[in-house]
């Protein structure tokens, strides 16, 4: 069973926007996804009908708001196949989720000389917090190398794991599309007494997520890349870990008691949710989960695999060696993120010409400067596919790339 992408596209109001009579071709979902009308309606009706602060209200409206928020938590929990919704912590984005682990778990469990193992394709959100710990606590940040085609090079895994207390890797790369063998890495981490954290920002929106299959101890992802609003992220963590970790941000909601002498913390998840939460955004994320479940994540994945294959084939056929697409070519180990270099035209110029044809892509280092250095480029053009893209979008990208070639080397 698969979904009809022409029907899906109509669910997204922004995608019917036109500029100069030309439709918008949105190929930057790795940066942020578009939102279906249903999600917009839920956020709007939250503010119109049930808006109140949560957890404390003694009146019915406040109960409704609280129920809506905690129901959304349950939805997110089932979406990633967690059976304990108290393991779902709401943050403002995946970056904050990563920082929560670094501060709250890292600062009380990592000491001088301990190793955090990351990969060479990580996003800065999974690099900088560890550099910060290196500065403050003297930990070592070690890097899993990559093969020529952008896969993890694990030939030396035993040596890489020596002294490691945490393995922190992407569930899917936001530059190369690479989908690393997370389960294998999580098991290997556990074998040496280390934990495993997965930055799943490009994973959860694109494929069925099953925590038992992934085998990790922490999972971070963000609402705005999965058809939800901005300002809402998630950290899932094993309850025994979360219960042992000190609080992250301090303030209201996360306490049980506060006196002039000190404080005691609330139970999970609220221990890690200080202050008024982004209630409307949480409810919006719940609606996004509903929308994705209605499509079926297996179908979303199938669609993306097929479309990615089409894109790789089309671009290769039309441009050959003029277009270098970084990352693996096998769609069983790569997602729909296509980072490209076109002839010797600077990515900024490519994206400018593409923009004049209504094609939205990203040019730059994609918050992965160590990876750019490895690829020996300053920047790439990145087109990323999602559930509302189809072959005509890929064709439009190819047409616009051809126009770019004509513009810069006529």
């Amino acid at each position, binding site marked *: 069973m698969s979904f009809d992408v022409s029907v899906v596209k109509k669910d997204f109001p922004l995608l019917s926007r036109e500029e100069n009579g030309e439709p918008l071709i949105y190929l930057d979902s790795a940066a942020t996804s578009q939102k279906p009308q249903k999600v917009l309606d839920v956020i709007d009706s939250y503010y119109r009908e049930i808006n109140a602060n949560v957890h404390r209200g003694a009146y019915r409206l406040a109960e409704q708001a609280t129920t809506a928020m905690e129901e959304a938590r349950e939805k997110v929990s089932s979406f990633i196949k967690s059976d304990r919704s108290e393991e779902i912590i709401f943050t403002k984005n995946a970056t904050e989720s990563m920082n929560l682990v670094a501060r709250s778990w890292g600062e009380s469990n990592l000491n001088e000389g301990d190793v955090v193992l990351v990969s060479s394709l990580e996003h800065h959100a999974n690099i900088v917090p560890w550099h910060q710990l290196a500065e403050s606590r003297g930990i070592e940040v070690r890097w899993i190398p990559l093969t020529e085609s952008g896969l993890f090079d694990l030939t030396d895994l035993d040596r890489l794991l020596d002294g490691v207390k945490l393995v922190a890797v992407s569930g899917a790369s936001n530059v190369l599309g690479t989908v690393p063998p997370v389960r294998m890495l999580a098991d290997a981490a556990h074998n040496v007494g280390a934990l495993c954290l997965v930055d799943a920002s490009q994973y959860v929106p694109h494929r069925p997520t099953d925590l038992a299959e992934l085998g990790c101890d922490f999972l971070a992802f963000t609402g705005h890349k999965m058809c939800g609003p901005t300002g809402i992220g998630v950290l899932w963590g094993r309850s025994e870990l979360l219960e042992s970790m000190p609080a992250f941000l301090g303030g209201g909601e996360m306490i049980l008691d506060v006196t002039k002498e000190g404080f005691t913390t609330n139970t999970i998840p609220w221990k890690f949710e200080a202050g008024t939460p982004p209630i409307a955004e949480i409810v919006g994320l719940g609606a996004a989960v509903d929308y994705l479940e209605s499509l079926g994540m297996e179908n979303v994945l199938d669609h993306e695999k097929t479309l990615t294959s089409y894109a790789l084939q089309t671009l290769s056929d039309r441009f050959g060696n003029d277009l270098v697409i970084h990352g693996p070519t096998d769609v069983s180990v790569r997602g729909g993120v296509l980072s490209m270099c076109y002839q010797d035209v600077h*990515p*900024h*110029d490519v994206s*400018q010409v593409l923009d*004049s044809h209504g094609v939205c892509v990203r040019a*730059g*280092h994609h918050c992965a400067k160590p990876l750019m250095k490895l690829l020996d480029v300053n920047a790439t053009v990145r087109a990323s596919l999602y559930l509302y893209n189809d072959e005509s979008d890929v064709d439009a990208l190819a047409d616009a790339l051809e126009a770019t070639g004509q513009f810069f080397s006529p």
Partner: protein
Amino acid sequence: MSGLEDLYREIILDHYRNPRNQGELETPPAVMAEGFNPLCGDEVTVHIHVEDGVIVDMKFGGHGCSISLASASMMTTVTTGKSLSEAKDIIYSFKQMMSIHEGRLEEGSEETGSPMAGLGDLQALQGVVKFPVRIKCATLGWNTLEQCFEELDSQ
């Protein structure tokens, strides 16, 4: 293709394809500075040789988009041979041009005393203002030249 011709005027593409004064100078006696545009990974180096307060030679290098390289190339042709204070005036005028709001573009071009007067070929970069994201590309070489001046001052 609306707007592309505003940004990529012929003279800009010419400087991009045939950059003037590309290369390096021996330091010392020249001084060198490097500039980066973190947004898109442009990097520009500028070498200048100053004698008796006059820029006798200038070279630029680096990797960048067409706007950053063309602007740097045009910068070298316009400021080489000028005194330091004349070069600083040109930098100021250029940056003024880059900070004009696109709505006011039509007003300014023919008036004397406006930033555009006296910039000659550099006026071709006016269109960059319509694409704010590219302004940093256009000013990168110029900011790097200013860093060279600071380098000189500190000697």
